[in-house]
């Protein structure tokens, strides 16, 4: 009896053990029920586009480059405006996030489009990806590019090398040309509604690509005028053309639904840190620029600005900055979400205000400069027309309709076009700087290239005595890609600080607009 029980129990145990041994099937439990391993190109593109549009927005722009460009100044806890919170630790996420967020997603869309042989998918994704890469290299200089984003591909690296900025620009030109050619010759269906920028209209993506190519060409004019001229000519003469009106602008229309809001308006919901910079306002108020009431709100206390509008100096201490709270203008109500935690400003349309990636107006200023410089097949005689077209495009964009006021403004000395170098170029640069309000990254890059306005200087309490020429590299990269960071710094020939100049900024004296004021002390 006992033996039978023993063997029965032993038998059970063996059976259980045998069941336990058939254990491969349990790995089926590890199929992820939450997330797919593949996703539609359109859904990935939409996500990437709205993430990318945050460049001109909340963190990277409104709380970083817009201060450096001195479009705005910081009235409370002015750590960014003093550049102390623009040091490596604070800007690390701006660099890192771009790569593993929008750039990687756009790479996935490009790969999907290419595997389907559909330029209507990979073309727009390529143009948008180059736009993001351009923002990155213009802020940091040499960056990972040719080896970047390949972490999951066969033979890909987890420690991409940093490409020279010059090589990156070369690649930009050729990739844009390829994308344009492919988009111009396809009948494939595009991204449609999944493309929040152009709703899948490839003719507009072609215009954006050509316009971006023109921007890139002009950016390198001080260091490689030959390529700049060739690329400008190619961009302007492409059959698809560049932006021809404000309708062509590359812009992200925000749903304004409380989740996807304009990033400036989103920031302004709870933060009241921004005032107009004296630097920008001094280029507008004395000329009765009719955009002033759009860009800025009237001051609440007219002690300093009896005419109602004015900016505050950049780079002050907390105590001195605070004194400007009501005597300097807030940014215009069109940028505000309506109700905020500190008051109501405007009607809330700021939540929907599109973010502009690139505008027709900027293209007109590029053309005006090219013309004045006799580049890209243009001649100086065309410069004035393009210059005024740029101003008019900006007025239209910001909803300024008072033709008389615009005419009066354009007639003012200092605004009325003065042909010639450097006078004309200076005026183009100033008006471009004013028109770029809202895109600090471009305004800062243009200031470094043109030194206009010459009044951009580090504030009295800035932690360095000069305006940064670049940002410091990501702290993450120092811990996981240090050797390549070191190579990048030796490539650029400087330390990892605000002073080191990137390739297109390495020959300032080549700029016809160059002034001694721009040759500020370089480095701590």
């Amino acid at each position, binding site marked *: 009896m*006992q033996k039978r029980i*023993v063997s029965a129990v032993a038998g*059970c145990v063996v059976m259980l*053990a045998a069941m*336990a041994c058939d254990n*491969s099937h*349990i*790995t089926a439990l*590890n199929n*992820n*029920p*939450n*997330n*797919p*391993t593949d*996703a*539609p190109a359109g*859904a*990935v593109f939409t*996500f990437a586009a709205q993430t990318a549009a945050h460049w001109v927005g909340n963190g990277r722009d409104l709380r970083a480059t817009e201060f450096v460009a001195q479009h705005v100044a910081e009235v*409370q806890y002015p750590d960014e405006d003093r550049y102390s919170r623009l040091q490596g630790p604070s800007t690390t996420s701006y660099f*890192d996030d771009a*790569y593993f967020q929008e750039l*990687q*997603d756009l790479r996935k869309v490009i790969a999907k489009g290419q595997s389907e042989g559909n330029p209507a998918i990979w073309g727009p994704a390529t143009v948008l990806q180059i736009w993001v890469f351009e923002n990155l290299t213009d802020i940091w200089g040499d960056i990972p590019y040719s080896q*970047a*984003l390949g*972490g*999951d591909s066969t033979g890909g690296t*987890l*420690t*991409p090398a940093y490409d020279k900025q010059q090589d990156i620009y070369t690649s930009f030109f050729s990739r844009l040309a390829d994308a344009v050619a492919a988009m111009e010759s396809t009948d494939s269906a595009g991204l449609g*509604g999944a493309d*929040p920028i152009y709703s899948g209209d490839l003719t507009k993506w072609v215009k954006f690509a050509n316009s971006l190519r023109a921007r890139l060409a002009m950016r390198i004019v001080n260091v490689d005028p030959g390529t700049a001229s060739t690329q400008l000519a190619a961009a302007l003469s492409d059959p698809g053309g560049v932006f021809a009106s404000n309708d062509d602008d590359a812009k992200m*229309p925000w749903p304004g639904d*409380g*989740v*996807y809001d304009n990033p400036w308006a989103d920031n302004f*919901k*709870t933060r*009241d840190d921004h005032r107009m910079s004296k630097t920008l306002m001094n280029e507008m108020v004395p000329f009765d620029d009719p955009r002033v009431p759009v860009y800025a709100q009237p001051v*609440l206390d007219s002690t300093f600005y009896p005419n109602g509008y004015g900016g505050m100096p950049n780079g002050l*201490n*907390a*105590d*001195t900055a*605070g*004194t400007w*709270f009501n005597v300097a203008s807030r940014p215009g109500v069109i940028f505000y979400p309506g*109700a905020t*935690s*500190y008051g109501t400003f405007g009607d*809330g349309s700021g939540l929907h205000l599109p973010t502009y990636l690139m505008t027709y107006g900027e293209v007109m200023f590029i053309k005006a400069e090219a013309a004045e410089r006799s580049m890209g097949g243009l001649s100086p005689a065309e410069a004035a027309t393009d210059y005024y077209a740029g101003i008019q495009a900006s007025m239209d964009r910001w909803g300024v309709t008072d033709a008389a006021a615009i005419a009066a403004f354009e007639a003012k000395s200092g605004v009325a076009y003065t042909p010639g170098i450097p006078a004309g170029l200076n005026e183009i640069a100033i008006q471009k700087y004013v028109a770029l309000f809202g895109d600090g990254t471009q305004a800062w890059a243009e200031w470094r290239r043109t030194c206009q306005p010459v009044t951009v200087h580090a504030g009295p309490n800035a932690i360095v005595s000069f305006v940064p020429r670049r940002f410091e590299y990501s702290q*993450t*990269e120092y*811990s*996981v*890609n*240090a050797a390549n960071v070191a190579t990048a710094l030796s490539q650029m020939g400087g330390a990892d600080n605000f002073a080191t100049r990137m390739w297109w900024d390495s020959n300032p004296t080549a700029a016809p607009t160059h002034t001694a004021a721009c040759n500020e002390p370089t480095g*701590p």
Partner: protein
Amino acid sequence: MDARIRHALFAAAALALVPTVLAAQDVLTGHVTGEGGAPLPNATVYIQNTRLGGIAGSDGAYRIVLPSGEAGQTVTVIARLIGYRERSQIAKLTQGTNTLDFALEVAPVQLQGVITVAEGQQVKKSQLGTSAQAVSNEQLTQSPNNNFVEQLGAKVAGVQVTSPGTQGGSVAIRIRGSASITGNNEPLYVIDGVAIPTRDRGSDANGGWDFGSTISDINADDISSITVLKGPNAAALYGSEAANGAVIITTKHGANTDGKIQTHLNTSYSFDKVGILPDFQNLYGQGAGGQFSYVDGLGDGIQDGNDQSFGPRLDGRPIDQFTGAQQPWIAHPDNVSSFFNTGGTFEANLAVDGGSEKSNARMAVGVQNQSGIVPNNFFHKWTSSLAGNLKIGDKFTTTASLQFLRNNGLNRAGVGYNAGILEGLDVWFGRQVDMNQLRQHYMDYNQFGNRYNWNSNYHSNPFFLQYMNPESDTRNQYIGSVSATYRITDWLSATGRAGGDIFNAQSQQDVASGNVSWAGAGLEDLAYQGAFNFYNESQTDYSTEGLLNATKDLTSRLQLNALAAVGEHQANYHRNQQQTQGISVPNIYNISNAAISPTLTQFDEKDQTNSVFGSASLTWDNWWTIEGTARNDWSSTLPKGKNSYFYPSVNTSMVLTDALPSLKSNVLTFLKLRGSIAKVGNTAPAYSLLTTFDGQSTKFGGQPLYTLDDALANSELKPEITRANEVGFELGLFGDRATVDASYYSRATTNQIINVPVSPTSGFQDKWINAGKITNKGYEASLNVTPVRALGGDFEWNTTFTFNKNNSRVDALTNDVQTIVLGGSWYLTEEARKGQPYGALYGYQFLRDPTTHQLLLHDGLPQLGPQAVLGTVQPDWTGGWNNEFRYKRLTVSGLLDIHEGGSIFSVTNFFGEYTGVLASTIHGRDKDWNDPGLVIKGIDDATGQANTTVVTAEEYFQSLFPIHEPFIYRDSYLKLREVRLSLDVPPNLTSLLHASQVQIALFGRNLWTSTKVPNIDPEFSTQTGNFQGVEFASLANPKSFGIQLQVTP
């Protein structure tokens, strides 16, 4: 050994009883039983103040023949056995047969006696080749406390416990250090044989609510005993999760009471007071640059949007304030402390149990009501349990236990930057603010037409937050197990066991209209009238096991113990969250009231492990034991076909005083040596093999959104392996009046499955890989001494000391990676950095002159320097020292916790200096806001000469941001954790209550802390995870003082 001692003692007792045996017929008899009614052979039973006594036999029965004349006497009868708590009962002896049964509770095992290493597996501690330490119920319930885990700290050597920074918060526990780089470093908890996961429901220094880990919900009163198995050596049989050690919990199942019902009561009430608060300055009020004037608290006045205290001197001058125009500008030194209330904690535990030889059961309920030290805060806990044993025939035994645990909280104090009031109070709070005005008017508007609040730019009135933005949470947990054992023969038994743990938790944050820090909720006339965030999670864990157990004397001197088993463990987890930034109708916190499309998230996870395991041990002549264990696991989360891993262990123990009796003397009474080598495997987290796209519930203008996940999966993952060695000795001196238990251990975890950071430029933030090695080596010891036993046993002094020293080192990561970030706050990171102890604090130093190492100053101010390792969170050593003095029925005890070294980053100090609220920021503005100013010692970066530039205190303290160096503190402290004064009510009163013991005690907790860390409680924990060592606005452990009543039947 047992048999020999038993015979010897029997002989002695028999000799002692010889005269009476001849003379009398009256007897005292009964059974001595342990947990679950199991007989306790060898227990001694004797009548106090007589020489009368007896020894229990193998069935637990004892028999004392009483001399004539004893009948009619009322006597105290005492039963004792090593490893069990002594028990006394009062009996009035009668003629004939007197019956008196004893049910003994497990007491902490020093050297000998039995110890539970697994459900139903009690082994003699002397035969254990690994380090294990038991904690008795008595040790856990002496001082009422929310959390039994917290009690293990100073009581078990090798265990490091960090108490929570807020009420009901997480207790971080580490046994012999942290071995896993990014994985779990908490031990495994096993309740009545069923492994249950503990879930970190904590927060971190960056903000949130710390709900505490679920294991803490178990009522200490329901616990019979706890055995802490230290490290993988002792816990190899429990599988992967025991690589960090295991805490084996045996719950009470009732005792054999011959059918009588017994009622136990343990109740207490304590007062709780806020613990350590920062040392604030009271010379300067809110503002900047020495200026302040209130208009709306938004910046429209003079510096009134500013929330720092570098304003005008608090000299009584009239200044416009939120309380009215031209109010005297004076300090309110107690403004922060007056925010807090005296809290109260009421706790009552009632249990009934009883049983016979065949069955026994226990039912218990416990209630804890806590009104917190912050306004409108309470915490309620309910525990209930039912457990019992049933014998069917003489071969079949069944046992079952079920616990239902529930707790809910309202307005737990949030920690960190984003979740609550404490950051506002500790570092951003104007020193002139009158807290009572805020309290009285939190729903009102002031005469300026603005919300009655000291600052409306960044802060809501703290009372508004507490009353209008309630955080609320509930969690329910069911833990149950059933098991049946069939004794096949006298040496072989089979057991089947099934158990599970079902858990669900909800938390909710309501945000009322008028809160300044949530989007769109700032003003009453908004489209959005508030916001909410709902969070729900649930998990079920099921385990089943089949075991065969053999215990056989192979020869008269060789004994075999063997175990073979199969098991299966399944876990299902579900989480969902709904939040919106705006609602339509005020005060309705329902998803249908969302004015902004709510963001919905959902996550489900399933995994399973199948196992085959076994062990065999041979004991020679009762003094030498060798044991081997082996386990093979199959995990669902590893690649198909490669999901199996095997791990063995071997250990041995030798009782030298038994092997060589000549060693024994009056001084040396016991000496045991032990050693063990073990290996434990561990599996990968679920879903780490394939990279996926993540979707978003909120559509972009109607368009769906997907983004590639930032973590790069790895389809080649292999199991990770921990190897551990330990040696130790146990020593008994002077008749075991002094005992020492000491171990040296080392363990190394290699091939770790870590989500290692990769260059973000690769398109990913991190990647799952097998890499890295962490080594932990250390010593641990516990010393128990009874230095004084005098006055015929009436006076006794017991002292115990535990000591842990653990050295951890990250030996290797990958070729590319020098460090892995475990967590970070304000640009400081806690890291596993190659060559450093686990948990290196990596942050910014001052910029220094390379030759003189003096600070390199710019315009008289310090500058941000390079990053460096500024410390480690690992302490040099920790210890606990407990002293107990007993005189007759009066006992006084005190427990000191000692924590030596390790470093912390205090964000409270980091921002407290930035904002000028701390007393330390008076420096440089002693006379007026910019007078005399500060000349910082250092080199001017322009001149290269010694600095002579005078700066204001405001400029200096704000220039420190974000330099971490001055805010890293050596985390040494000495804490008087517990003090207790107890009185056992005299027996004649006790017997009126039909109780065996009634005890009244006064107790205090956290009454005194000695530390050099300024302004904060140096002990804080906000989660059980690996991000430790960064403090921010943690609510210091409250000081408690209370009274307790315990009635034992």
